[in-house]
């Protein structure tokens, strides 16, 4: 009998853990709406989970655990607000706290619009009145549920620094009354752009870390894709959302082949295609098609995803469709005329029209003086010059690239290129 009890309690524990994992984000999002305060909501959720661990094993798991957790969390918070009254002396405070407790206690729409609450949370965390770093940090912490320590690691700052950054962001939300709302349709597209920029920021930080010794932070990429899927579920048929999710999936599908066992960069041409994640590629390709079928202006994310799709479709027997890639980069240049897009366009041009024309494009980009510190520009020049047989200049370009590159694996690749040229 004792063994049975033990077995039951273990399965109950697993079940409770599973429920917590599934519901943590939704419970928090709704508690923030009900309580109007991030910290109060986090404490309330913690207390609700503690109460569940105490009560569920003996009383059984409630029929609607999510509603139970939200209701319990809200009641705990109301108790806390009421309890605080005892410790306060000022009458004005007492009236305020009492009114606040009544207000929270009166709210009874615990069991509706959970999806909307998570969307509200995303829009609040990605509000343009918060600085870009705070937006990403807050989203990882509050929407993805990463610990402060994990978010700090992603930003390569101390846990204390990150905790302060999060506190400041939440204080601004409170002090400036940043709303906990899905924005009006008049500004919705613009605000979605901001949210997507945050998700893309999380992904690129994971995909090509800007500092450190590891090339890919798979955890961050995974979080970004999870966010993308959540947005796609909450804002269905949005071309930009689908485009970004497709872009991330198509890049993420190649994660195992992008880095060698020794941690070195493996360029697209040399990658082992059998290690590409075919399921992610299939999802990505389907999303690109769906996104392109949405009427209206095409999203830059979709164009980038379409380029990634052409790379993914190419195989051993099927050459990469470089002319179409050049065409897509020209579309992208019209939507997003940035130096990085120009550089990628030049690399594609080199595959169609040769290195001489590509070198012209890159030199004109460099002459405008915006990107002299960008190591990939020098690396591309080095490659074109090498192809043109101008070896001394190629060496010089690779040396410049090496001087401006910060990521260890990339530095190793550039050093290898340079060494190969020295022996000529």
């Amino acid at each position, binding site marked *: 009998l004792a063994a049975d009890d033990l077995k039951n309690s273990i399965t109950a524990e697993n079940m409770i853990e599973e429920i917590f994992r599934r519901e943590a984000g939704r419970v928090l999002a709704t508690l923030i709406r009900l309580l109007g305060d991030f910290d109060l909501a986090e404490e309330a959720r913690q207390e609700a989970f503690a109460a569940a661990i105490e009560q569920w094993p003996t009383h059984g798991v409630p029929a609607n655990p999510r509603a139970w957790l939200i209701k319990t969390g809200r009641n705990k918070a109301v108790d806390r607000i009421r309890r605080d009254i005892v410790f306060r002396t000022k009458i004005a405070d007492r009236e305020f706290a009492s009114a606040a407790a009544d207000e929270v206690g009166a709210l009874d729409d615990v069991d509706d619009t959970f999806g909307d609450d998570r969307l509200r949370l995303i829009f609040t965390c990605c509000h343009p009145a918060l600085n870009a770093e705070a937006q990403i940090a807050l989203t990882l912490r509050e929407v993805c549920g990463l610990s402060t320590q994990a978010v700090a690691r992603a930003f390569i700052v101390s846990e204390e620094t990150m905790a302060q950054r999060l506190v400041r962001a939440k204080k601004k939300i409170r002090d400036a009354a*940043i*709303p906990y*709302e899905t924005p009006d349709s008049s500004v919705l597209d613009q605000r979605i752009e901001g949210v997507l920029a945050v998700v893309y920021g999380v992904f690129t930080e994971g995909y090509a870390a800007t500092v450190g010794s590891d090339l890919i932070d798979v955890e961050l990429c995974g979080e970004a894709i999870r966010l993308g899927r959540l947005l796609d579920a909450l804002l269905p048929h949005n071309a930009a959302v689908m485009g970004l999710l497709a872009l991330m999936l198509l890049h993420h599908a190649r994660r195992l082949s992008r880095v060698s066992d020794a941690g070195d960069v493996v360029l697209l041409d040399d990658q082992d295609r059998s290690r590409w994640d075919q399921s992610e590629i299939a999802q990505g390709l389907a999303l690109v098609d769906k996104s392109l079928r949405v009427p209206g202006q095409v999203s830059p994310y979709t164009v980038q995803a379409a380029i990634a799709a052409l790379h993914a479709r190419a195989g051993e027997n099927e050459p990469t469709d470089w002319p179409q890639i050049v065409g897509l980069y020209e579309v992208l240049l019209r939507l997003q005329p940035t130096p990085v897009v120009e550089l990628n366009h030049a690399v594609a041009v080199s595959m169609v029209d040769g290195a001489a024309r590509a070198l012209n494009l890159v030199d004109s980009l460099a002459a405008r003086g915006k990107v002299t510190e960008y190591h990939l520009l020098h690396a591309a020049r080095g490659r074109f010059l090498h192809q043109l047989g101008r070896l001394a200049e190629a060496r010089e370009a690779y040396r410049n690239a090496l001087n401006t590159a910060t990521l260890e694996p990339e530095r190793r690749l550039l050093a290898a290129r340079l060494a190969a040229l020295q022996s000529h």
Partner: protein
Amino acid sequence: MNYLLLVYTNEAEITGLGQSELKKLTDEYMEFTKSIVQAGHFKAGDRLKPVTAASTVRVRNGKAITTDGPFAETREQLGGYYLIEAKNLDEATAIAARIPGARFGSIEVRPVWPPMT
């Protein structure tokens, strides 16, 4: 919540405007002010005289020192303000974006603490 909307514009740009342009801008401001009064957002608002008329006061070691103007090297100067009531930051920034000066200057949106009790 109350928000103070601080209108920063380049004074030289404004003083350089022709008669008809200035009239147009003034009309736009009157139109805007009327609209936020009607919508119940308006609490207060004024246009400021140029920084050439400004003085800065500091108290150091118990002595008040008055100096000429604020920092003249900044490109934009505080030219006026509105005190408005809005339900949240999004409503406040939407109102700020409608201030005519937002098109060529910038509007700082500052939430106001409720009065101390």
